[in-house]
């Protein structure tokens, strides 16, 4: 049930899509491959699925070398960003496909399809065609279809990328719940750091084909390995030449050692927190987040000049 990626590289012409990446995914875990577009995360996922061939390196699935296996022999379930629904088949037909090509008995297939449709909350929609479903429903059908043959690993390529924000949030929550129920080793690709933080228990950050850091959401946020991860995972400010998280900034009413002068341009209330946007002397934007109590204590107002001091800073060797 585990996945191991060993020194995998893949080039498209002159472009190094994946550059010597090694990554271990524990059985039963929920891992996010996070990175900006063109970082190689989708290519890496497709290599694991067998939909692309690596130029070098090995892929182990459940400890067995799968590098030379075609996709149909790898025991992976794959969910596509644009659903890849079989348009000429009903929803039930789509879900049954993986079982039918394995020539399972009819009764068993029917039972399993019903089970899965109810798992993804599409009960009673089995006779519809994919074109009669909403985007969110189609993606849930895609998930049920991928899960039907009981894959050892489930791979999702930007599964919520084509959906609107509300459905996205709903499906995100639902995916974590599903993972608790089915407990299949799951890897999903996303460019949305919030999505990765919310859903995954391990995040692998990729940039320009290379793996920048692997860790829990908390590790990435608290101890980013480099400037890229610091900036990409969570928000980061540059204050006086150092990088600092918005909630690691202190606002002072008077000048102090190590503090930078800045003017408040906007204040937003975020429930228990307050977000304060400032401009320093050079006009560069700084965002600070402080607790509501601290905010009220300071009696801040727009246009006020304050001093900003990092409580906790990070300097990365570049």
């Amino acid at each position: 049930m585990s996945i191991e990626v060993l020194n995998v590289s893949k080039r498209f012409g002159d472009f190094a899509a994946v550059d010597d990446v090694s990554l271990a995914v524990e059985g039963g875990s929920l891992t996010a491959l996070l990175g900006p577009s063109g970082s190689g995360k989708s290519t890496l996922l497709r290599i694991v699925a067998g939909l692309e061939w690596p130029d070098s390196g090995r892929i182990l699935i459940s400890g067995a070398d799968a590098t030379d296996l075609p996709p149909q022999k790898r025991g992976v379930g794959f969910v596509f960003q644009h659903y890849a629904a079989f348009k000429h088949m009903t929803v039930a037909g789509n879900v049954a496909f993986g079982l039918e090509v394995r020539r399972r008995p009819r009764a068993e297939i029917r039972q399993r399809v019903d089970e899965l449709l109810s798992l993804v909350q599409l009960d009673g929609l089995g006779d519809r065609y994919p074109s009669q479903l909403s985007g969110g429903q189609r993606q849930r059908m895609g998930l049920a279809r991928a899960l039907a043959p009981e894959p050892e690993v489930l791979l999702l390529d930007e599964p919520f990328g084509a959906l609107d924000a509300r459905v996205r949030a709903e499906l995100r929550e639902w995916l974590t719940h599903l993972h608790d129920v089915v407990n299949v080793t799951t890897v999903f690709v996303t460019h949305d750091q919030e999505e990765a933080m919310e859903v995954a228990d391990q995040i692998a950050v990729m940039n320009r084909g290379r793996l920048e850091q692997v860790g829990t959401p908390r590790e990435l946020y608290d101890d980013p390995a480099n400037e890229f991860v610091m900036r990409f995972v969570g928000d980061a400010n540059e204050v006086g030449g150092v990088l600092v998280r918005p909630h690691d900034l202190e606002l002072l009413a008077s000048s102090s050692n190590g503090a930078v002068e800045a003017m408040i341009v906007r204040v937003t209330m975020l429930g228990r927190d307050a977000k304060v946007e400032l401009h320093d002397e050079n006009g560069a934007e700084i965002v600070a987040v402080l607790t509501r109590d601290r905010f009220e204590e300071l009696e801040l107002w727009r246009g006020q000049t304050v001093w900003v001091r990092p409580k906790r800073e990070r300097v990365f060797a570049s």
Partner: protein
Amino acid sequence: MAEAITKLSLRVVALGYLVVVLLGPLAIVFWRTFEHGLDPVWNALSDPDTIHAFKLTIFITAIAVPVNTVFGIVAALAIVRRTFPGKGVLNAFIDLPLALSPVVVGLCLFLLYGAHGWFGRWFDAHDIQILFALPAMVIATVFVSIPFVAREVVPTLQEIGDEQEQAARTLGASGWQTFWRITLPSIRWAVIYGVVLTTARCLGEYGAVAVVSGRLQGQTETATLRVQESWESFDLVGAYAISLVLALIAIAVLVAMTVIRPKEERTT
């Protein structure tokens, strides 16, 4: 107002063109056929040579259409889904029969399979008759009707992309299962349309077959050759009657396709 006039005149021009070029000649054939009543028509059509000509046309079509359907699908898959050296050449050569006059095709076959041709000598030595017999007529018909299935299927394959096929592979389907259960159903209307066009082309083939058949009455004379033959021997009713039957078959095929083709297919 000006827009409405433009719209109207466009319609008049399009319809007028169709009437003059297409429907007019058809109507005249229809009228001329039945000018002297049904009996002469029946006599012409029940002539043993005419019946043989129709049988031969249908027989050749029944070979050429399946052959070119399989070839067209394979060629389209190769062009869209694979990269290989010579792909551009294949893509260009599929259209060749459209550009080449059928008479030239006939001539090429004549030179290849004739007594002194490259292949002709070998077949001659083995006592196999190609020219002036069924084999040459089938080859000629297959050649001129090659492009239609591939030309219909290629854009459809490009449009549907290969994600569904990839999904099928990850779900455990072999290449063969993927083709039968995913690819073929997705392109079925393009295939059917291609088959209809191929059939129409085979039924109507004249030039290439005229060169290689030898035009022996009751032996290597197809329906279209029979039209020409009747015309030349002043059997005008016979020529009109056979033409009309060919036209009716073509129309029936087109109508059948329009009827069975679901309307939403194009959009989804």
